[in-house]
């Protein structure tokens, strides 16, 4: 490959940020001496100081330690909640786009049924039937998340399968499975990765923005999205509650994206 460049400094910076976040997820105790759920009624809404570098929240909890302890759950949400729908959706989209005709019609009508339900209705239904909690948060996100990937991949495959290399592969007698996975998939994976990176962040935020539907992460487990959404009422008086988790979220997101970008460059192959 002609433009297989050396890894950029941006990649290394991103990797460094992600390593730190990963360390926070694995060993949060190394980064803070505070318990993220310990309330201190005597120090409510204190601005950042030497004692509490990111200040305290409305229940007197140390924001810094909450931000740090959030890393574990957030990484889990980000990756797990993204991964399964991304894989399922991609495969479904591949099948549908590649075979077309009846297969496509059936798959697309099933997809239509899922799309016809507003996300909110699906989520409330799932949570009401299964109960709340992290596990069901995942299930709900999985059930609603694959739709986008399927549609996205299908539209790419529809275009891609008309390219000469597919015809060439067919004439060589390759099996459909091989053509789909070895030839078409690498060419449609890049938008999936791009979307998935954004999806990771949307999942992290979705947990919080759907908490009023009963899809919240159980209190008091700290989680960036939840901290941000709880801090919303205090954003004018205690800016620090939402600012620091917001920065962490954005930093993590950008780093994942840079790494993901590099990854997708390597994965796409040309024919």
């Amino acid at each position, binding site marked *: 490959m002609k433009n297989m460049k050396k890894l950029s400094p*941006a990649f290394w910076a991103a990797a460094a940020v992600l390593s730190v976040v990963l360390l926070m997820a694995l060993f949060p105790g190394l980064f803070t001496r505070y318990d993220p759920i310990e309330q201190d009624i005597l120090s409510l809404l204190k601005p950042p100081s030497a004692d509490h570098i990111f200040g305290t929240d409305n229940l007197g909890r140390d924001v810094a330690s909450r931000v740090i302890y959030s890393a574990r759950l957030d990484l889990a949400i980000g990756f797990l909640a993204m991964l399964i729908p991304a894989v399922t959706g991609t495969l479904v989209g591949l099948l549908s786009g590649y075979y*077309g*005709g009846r297969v496509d*019609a059936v798959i*697309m*009508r099933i997809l*239509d*049924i899922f*799309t*016809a*339900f*507003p*996300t*909110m*209705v699906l989520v*409330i*239904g799932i949570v*009401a*039937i299964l109960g709340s909690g992290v596990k069901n948060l995942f299930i709900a996100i999985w059930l609603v998340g694959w739709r*986008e990937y399927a*549609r*996205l991949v299908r*539209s*790419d495959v*529809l*275009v891609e399968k*008309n390219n*000469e290399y597919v015809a060439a592969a067919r004439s060589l007698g390759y099996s459909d499975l091989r053509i789909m996975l070895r030839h078409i998939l690498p*060419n449609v994976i*890049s*938008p999936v990765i*791009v*979307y998935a*990176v*954004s999806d990771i*962040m*949307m999942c992290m*935020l979705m947990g*919080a*923005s759907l908490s009023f*539907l009963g899809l919240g992460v159980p209190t008091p487990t700290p989680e960036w*999205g939840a901290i*941000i*959404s709880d801090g*919303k009422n205090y*954003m004018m008086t205690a800016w620090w509650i*939402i600012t620091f988790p*917001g920065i962490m*979220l*954005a930093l*993590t*997101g*950008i780093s994942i*994206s*840079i790494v993901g*970008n590099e990854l*997708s460059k390597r994965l*796409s192959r*040309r*024919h």
Partner: protein
Amino acid sequence: MDEFTYILKRILQMIPVLLIVTLAIFFGMRMIPGDPALLLVGNRASDETIAAMRAKLGLDQPLITQYLLFLRSCLTFDFGNSLTLKAPVTELFRQKAVVTVSLTLMTILFAVLISVPLGYYAGLHHDQPAGAVINSISLVFVSVPEFLIGLLLLLVFALKLHWFPVGDWGHTLPEHIRSLILPSLTGALMTSSLVMRNISDNVVKVLSYDYVDFARSKGLSEKRIRNSYILRNVMIPAVTLLAMRMTYMLAGSIVIESVFALPGIGQMMLNAILSRDYSLVQATVYLFAIIVLVMNLLTDISYSLLDPRVKLK
């Protein structure tokens, strides 16, 4: 003619899909715990009062009867009155749909205006700093919650500069349009981040194809190459993404509606679900399903318009 048969076939295929949707929403809503009668009569009512209210709402009838009634209303489009709001469901839907549809259209318009030129530019210049900067800015916008972007826009452009109202739908058309600018921009930032990255990536991919090199070597003008190869290959995924976001927004964005005090579908739907307003939820989901199916059909038709190699069949 082929196209006509295709479209007819697709329309016929909608019937079973809609039937499944009505079944799922009807029985799904009833599987969710929570009794609309209890919510209507309030926390202090006795069991007898709750039972009387159930009878009054027609909830004491056999489920199958209730379902058939719902099915009938799906054919006549007369969904009766909302359980909790007592107003005709169709009228409520119409009122809110005006807001949500306008918001969605303006959002998509902004998203296209932002993402297509920027994404195209970033793709052509992906190995230059400008491209990298555009790509990372787009990522920041994905990672900032919508409510925060919305509130900040309100703070600056409404409260401090007075260019726009601090949220509100207004009463006249010019007021509506003025009210929609900030919320549309908020929604467009997220959508255009997604679309921009997608376009830029696909441009990079297409440029690397051998046939582009081949076309160049044949002496085709750079403009011609862009128009015939790049646009064709880039627009289909972009249109898909935009259509996806459009479907998503048509269901009503609770966050944007809430921050900008817009009376749209999202907020109504949320309240209807939380108060177990069966008639309102059922009808809204059904009407929404029709919209989604039509949107998906239009998207598929647009594929073949954008790229003649994609056949409708």
